[in-house]
């Protein structure tokens, strides 16, 4: 099925070979000593796929349906609370579907598959850490339950209540900036998937697909807000879970465990099996994952916490996290498994092997190429029709993550920057329109960033380090603010600002500074620094008039149990979106309002 391209090698020149179904470009360069040759494959254009007109039809029907949903649910949006947290009306099953749907995005699938490709089975430690952490958070309510009790919509809103408006605005700018940078590669990853899966061979195809995808996402997210996000997340969850389970079965059936095991051993050696192996991920990387995936991604990252804030009760929050632990495991494990399958398939296919591996058996160090391995593999093993379903499911995954993130960052800018800076004079409706406008601006930025930024590292590492700009400081601020009464505004501000240090973990920045430190060491160091600054700043510069939020951190099991999904309690839910971020009360949880002390 895979098309074989005759390979021609000529030192220092870019060569191409075109056949009836595609084109392959490669470049052969002499090394510094002229003793050997290093192959650099610039791109894999069209490699034969099974994608047919039927598959295009399936994808088109899905996309049209998604936009229609965005238009339909627009009538349920009348205020910021409806728009951002769907009126706080999510019950357990829908909350779990939307949590998994949002977090199991195409970008997750792409970077996890890349991790499986480049790291072997060892990469699966990430899913284990995420699952255990989510379960622990569900059982303990760590950070997320106090936030839900306070009835906040966004994390910076909590900063405002606990540390004042300045910390809120600074925290919001850092959160939104980090988040937008974090999703900077989403669009490109999505476009690479689509072009690789469908076999689009035009060199500009990635750019056009990126443009088309962002326009579709903007249309229905701008119109429908969280309500449309929830609905599309649910549809995506249904489509993707069925599609991925079927794909895993077909991949396993095609390759078999022994072939996978053998390929991993040949390409990665022991490091492909043992996550603690020094030649692979190593202990420092695993520790970095415990912090990023385990703690921050679950309890500090705004898009995840937003689901907790949208839940209809504290009990739902706990169930949501406990049950989502399976989803958090799967969202890494399945794509990583498919990435490993792609590696084994390519390793055993002569034409593909020469594209993805150097002659000495190492993976070609080209992030864009690595990202295309899994979709190319899928396009080879899946039958026509099934590819369309998987393509639609993946596009659904792409859009569900994109819409959640767009909504999240736009809401933060509108709600936590524009509103406080206006002195609380912005109306709810004005706030809503600002959020919509910001979303369009972010969409344009993503398009430009996706076209311009040279990734140069694993997509996952890029995301972890850009996220760390925010969550390194945010973890310290939330931890201190919720569980340490002596935490002060100065400590919080210092902790937040220290997050900028995480920028040094980006490959282009490290290259520019001539640093030879791994990104995980940079990330862990910044996280440690944030905690030190939070504690040191609070002890050295305590607040003269400390603000304490009553009982937010108290784990009141009786209250949790009292919160049910019963429709009668639904009626008691107050719509507590306020235009000025003032104190709000969630009567459903029978919690007292926060009281300045």
């Amino acid at each position, binding site marked *: 099925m895979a098309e074989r391209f005759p390979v021609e090698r000529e030192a220092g020149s870019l060569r191409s070979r075109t056949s009836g179904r595609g084109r392959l470009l490669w470049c052969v360069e002499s090394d510094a000593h002229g003793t050997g040759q290093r192959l650099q494959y610039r791109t894999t254009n069209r490699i034969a796929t099974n994608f047919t007109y039927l598959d295009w039809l399936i994808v088109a029907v899905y996309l049209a349906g998604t936009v229609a949903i965005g238009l339909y649910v627009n009538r349920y949006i009348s*205020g910021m609370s409806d728009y951002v947290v769907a009126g706080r*009306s999510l019950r*357990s099953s*829908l909350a779990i*579907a939307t949590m998994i749907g949002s977090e199991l995005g195409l970008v997750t699938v792409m970077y996890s598959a890349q991790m499986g490709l480049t790291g072997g089975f060892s990469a699966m430690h990430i899913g284990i850490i995420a699952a255990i952490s989510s379960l622990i958070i569900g059982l303990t309510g760590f950070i997320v339950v106090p936030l839900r009790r306070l009835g906040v919509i966004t994390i910076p809103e909590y900063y405002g209540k606990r540390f004042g408006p300045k910390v809120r605005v600074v925290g919001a700018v850092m959160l939104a900036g980090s988040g937008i940078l974090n999703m900077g590669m989403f669009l490109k990853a999505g476009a690479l998937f689509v072009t690789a899966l469908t076999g689009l061979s035009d060199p500009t195809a990635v750019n056009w697909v990126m443009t088309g995808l962002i326009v579709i996402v903007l249309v229905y997210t701008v119109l429908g807000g969280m309500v449309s996000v929830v609905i599309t997340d649910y549809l995506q969850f249904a489509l993707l879970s069925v599609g991925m*389970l079927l794909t895993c079965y077909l991949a396993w059936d095609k390759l078999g465990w022994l072939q996978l095991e053998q390929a991993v051993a040949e390409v990665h050696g022991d490091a492909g099996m043992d996550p603690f192996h020094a030649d692979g991920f190593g202990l420092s990387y695993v520790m970095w994952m415990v912090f990023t995936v385990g703690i921050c991604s679950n309890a500090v990252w705004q898009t995840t916490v937003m689901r907790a804030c949208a839940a209809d009760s504290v009990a739902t929050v706990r169930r949501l996290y406990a049950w989502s632990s399976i*989803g958090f*495991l*799967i969202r890494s494990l399945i794509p990583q498994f498919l990435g490993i399958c792609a590696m084994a398939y390519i390793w055993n296919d002569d034409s593909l092997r020469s594209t993805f591996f150097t002659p000495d058996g190492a993976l070609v160090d080209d992030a864009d190429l690595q990202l295309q391995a899994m979709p190319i593999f899928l396009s080879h093993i899946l039958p026509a029709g099934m590819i369309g379903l998987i393509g639609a499911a993946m596009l659904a995954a792409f859009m569900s993550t994109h819409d959640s993130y767009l909504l999240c960052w736009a809401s933060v800018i509108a709600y936590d920057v524009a509103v406080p800076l206006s002195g609380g004079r912005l109306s709810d409706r004005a706030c809503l329109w600002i959020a919509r406008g910001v979303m369009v601006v972010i969409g344009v930025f993503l398009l430009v960033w996706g076209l311009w930024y040279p990734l140069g590292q694993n997509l996952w590492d890029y995301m972890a380090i850009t996220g760390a700009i925010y969550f390194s400081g945010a973890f310290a601020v939330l931890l201190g603010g919720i569980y340490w009464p002596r935490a002060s505004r100065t400590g919080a501000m210092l902790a937040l600002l220290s997050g900028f240090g995480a920028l040094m973990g980006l490959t282009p920045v490290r290259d520019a500074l001539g640093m030879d430190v791994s990104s995980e060491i940079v990330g862990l160091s910044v996280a440690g620094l944030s905690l030190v600054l939070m504690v040191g700043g609070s002890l050295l510069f305590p607040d003269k008039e400390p603000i304490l939020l009553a009982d937010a951190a108290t784990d009141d099991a009786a209250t949790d149990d009292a919160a049910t999904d019963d429709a009668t309690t639904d009626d008691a839910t107050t719509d507590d979106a306020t235009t000025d971020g003032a104190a709000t009360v969630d009567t459903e949880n029978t919690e007292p309002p926060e009281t300045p002390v």
Partner: protein
Amino acid sequence: MNAWSEFWKGLIIVSLVCFALLSVFVMIGGFRDVFAMFRRIDRQHEQSGRGASKPEQAPPSEPGA
């Protein structure tokens, strides 16, 4: 190496089975919850007087409502 291989194999199988079961429950429960969500938002709008969801019944929203 062998122990790791068995561990990863077992993990993948168990995870896929758990996810399949979870998917069935969540798909069924989520379908019901979608309509419950619409009903709740409608009720909230009626209680707060911010306008109903149906366009023909929706008065102009008040700024700051």
